[in-house]
């Protein structure tokens, strides 16, 4: 037998006080599809749920409509409790009679009761057409692909390899090390950058679980959590990789200050990165140096702080002082950003070493004096409110990190989002290393500019998150939910009706739809594991070929028809 059981919750009188539940029940009894109905005291009590579940069993109903409080209040929990007792989620309809009816219409019980019945009959009508999405279970390929072999990628690779997972470490350049390969020494430890990375690079060399692909270019990434397929061309030729998880550790790049402070025109105006390169070559005798902070950062176009520029300037200012104690070194800044005890101590050390700090306003930046090279820098000190002229033989511009150019391309391949600058976005602030796409994790400067220590920590974190996925043998598509709560379902294409127009492919924000050739025709296909059930494809498919079974168009149309007593106006 099949039919619908209707349960109306009094909610200790909260609903009952306004809505005439007895007449609702009578209405329900008269309804053709309803095989059983009851008014219960309060479905949030375990007792009542138990009773309800057994009544459903007895009545032979295969679908249930509950009229009670809202999903966010206790309604959601009541649904969960019934699901636990073996009733399919898609067979349960929850009607919010409390928040959405009784409480907002308490002065008009008659119409509230009318509305309550409309809402119940809408749900009854809709339930008929709801189906559960077909689930699929996929096995997990216990290997990870890591994009980028900087501090973040290397630490992720090391962590995963030490846990016993095979790692494909894909690097655009020829050597591991990332941006630290371009840097002489690293704050805050002041050790040589190559020294710092040594343990990580050694791990790549000796751990056979880590496959390193130098000079690599990612051509495509398809697939889904547990089973990504990657096409890479590297110095080893064209290759296909399979990976259960993808960790994006592709870092960022340095912004070049063309047009600012006459960079590129004056020979001794250089960037921090150029100074690092000179230091790698060996010590330099510098008599007076002026560092300028926030060049192209914390402004209208790039309002963010890149976090690594202040400590870098402190590092190099002190180094100049140490190499030549008589040197005069100025740091012109808008605020010194050195959060945490270690970096604050680093700042104090620079002060103690005699580095001078001058604060300027964004609206009144320092000026370069000189023709071919800088002879002096003029700056308006915003604290003493005095103009100062600093003679110098070197000006170092601190520029921020900006996103890599191919982030957007990678984001499109993976169905990710980038933020408005182009860094990869995390799913929520509470899950900083996870993205909206299952099985894809982010760390290091690819998600936001960080120092190498932070990059290393984040790499470990991303590896731990990935390991949790790689360690599971298999999982089902419906268990993947990047949003809190249950996954709603996933879209499915009816191959016979599809015209292959490609609208769904263009609109899907998760790159879950694609076209597949079937003879001479193309048809749309939805990847169940990538689909997050947003419904965009459903809304642009001209003839309703792609549907979310949980909210079939017939369900919506049926609900619309019942919305006001089922009296279609036309």
């Amino acid at each position: 037998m099949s039919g619908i059981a209707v349960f109306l919750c009094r909610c200790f009188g909260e609903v009952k006080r306004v809505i005439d539940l007895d007449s609702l029940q009578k209405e329900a009894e008269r309804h053709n599809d309803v095989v059983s109905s009851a008014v219960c005291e309060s479905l949030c009590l375990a007792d009542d749920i138990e009773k309800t579940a057994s009544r459903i069993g007895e009545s032979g109903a295969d679908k249930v409509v509950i009229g009670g409080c809202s999903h966010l209040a206790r309604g959601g929990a009541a649904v969960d409790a019934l699901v636990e007792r073996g009733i399919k989620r898609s067979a349960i309809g929850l009607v919010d009679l409390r928040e959405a009816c009784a409480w907002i219409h308490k002065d008009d019980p008659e119409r509230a009761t009318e509305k309550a019945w409309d809402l119940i009959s809408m749900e009854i009508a809709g339930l008929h057409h709801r189906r559960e999405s077909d689930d699929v279970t996929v096995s997990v390929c216990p290997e990870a692909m890591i994009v980028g072999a900087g501090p973040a990628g290397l630490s992720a690779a090391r962590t995963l390899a030490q846990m016993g997972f095979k790692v494909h470490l894909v690097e655009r350049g020829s050597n591991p090390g990332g941006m630290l390969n371009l840097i002489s020494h690293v704050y805050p430890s002041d050790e040589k950058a190559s020294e710092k990375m040594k343990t990580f690079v050694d791990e790549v060399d000796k751990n056979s679980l880590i496959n390193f692909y130098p000079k690599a270019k990612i051509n495509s990434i398809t697939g889904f959590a547990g089973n990504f397929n990657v096409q890479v061309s590297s110095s080893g030729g064209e290759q296909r990789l399979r990976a259960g998880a993808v960790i994006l550790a592709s870092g960022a790049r340095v912004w070049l200050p063309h047009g600012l402070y006459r960079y590129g025109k004056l020979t001794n105006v250089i960037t921090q990165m150029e100074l690092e390169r000179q230091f790698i070559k060996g010590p330099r005798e510098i008599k007076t140096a002026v560092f300028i902070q926030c060049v192209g950062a914390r402004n209208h176009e790039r309002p963010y702080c890149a976090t690594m520029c202040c400590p870098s300037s402190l590092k190099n200012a002190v180094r100049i002082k140490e190499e030549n104690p008589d040197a005069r070194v100025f740091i012109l800044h808008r605020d010194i950003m050195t959060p945490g005890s270690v970096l604050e101590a680093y700042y104090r050390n620079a002060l103690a070493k005699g580095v001078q700090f001058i604060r300027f306003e964004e609206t009144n930046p320092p000026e370069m004096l000189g023709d071919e090279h800088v002879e002096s820098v003029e700056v308006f000190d915003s604290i003493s409110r005095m103009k100062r002229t600093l003679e110098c033989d070197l000006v170092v511009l601190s520029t921020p990190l900006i996103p890599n150019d191919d982030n957007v391309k990678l984001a499109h391949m993976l169905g990710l989002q980038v933020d408005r600058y182009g860094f990869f976005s995390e799913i929520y602030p509470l899950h900083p290393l996870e993205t909206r796409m299952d099985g894809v994790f982010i760390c290091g400067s690819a998600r936001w500019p960080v120092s190498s220590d932070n990059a290393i920590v984040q790499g470990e974190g991303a590896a731990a998150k990935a390991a949790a996925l790689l360690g599971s043998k298999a999982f089902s598509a419906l268990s993947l939910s990047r949003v809190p709560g249950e996954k709603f379902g996933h879209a499915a294409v009816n191959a016979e009706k599809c015209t292959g127009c490609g609208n769904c492919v263009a609109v899907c924000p998760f790159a879950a739809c694609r076209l597949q050739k079937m003879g001479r025709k193309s048809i749309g296909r939805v990847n169940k594991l990538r689909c997050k059930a947003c419904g965009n494809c459903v809304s642009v498919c001209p003839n309703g070929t792609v549907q979310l079974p949980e909210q079939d168009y017939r369900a919506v149309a049926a609900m619309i028809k019942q919305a006001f007593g089922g009296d279609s106006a036309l």
Partner: protein
Amino acid sequence: MKILIFACKWCGLIGADGAGKKRIQLPTQFRVIPVECAALVEPDAVIRAFASGMTGVAVLGCHLGGCRFNHANHAAIKRLELLKTLLDATGIGGKRLLISFGTAHEDHQYAEVVKTFFDELEAMPSTAAWIS
């Protein structure tokens, strides 16, 4: 007066819930269909609603940057704006379709959106030309 509201579970529905908890009194003549995301509101379903005699239809979704499904709601807004143009051209009136993204997230906002929509529709001429 018959108003149909499609409310996204992450925005409009939260506002609706809050309005209930605050016992904000609202006119009764509206019905809510909860959806996972405003992107799931097919423009054809909105048309279906008008053809079934709705005086107005509202779609409540999240802020343009706050969609749980990446940028799913951007395309949703675009489709609905286009539908408004069509409603205007046929004289039904684009104003009968309320697109509210990110403005009904909280209890009072939600109540305000619903009430204002009521008042606006009340002031509009009837759709009798269709209904007769």
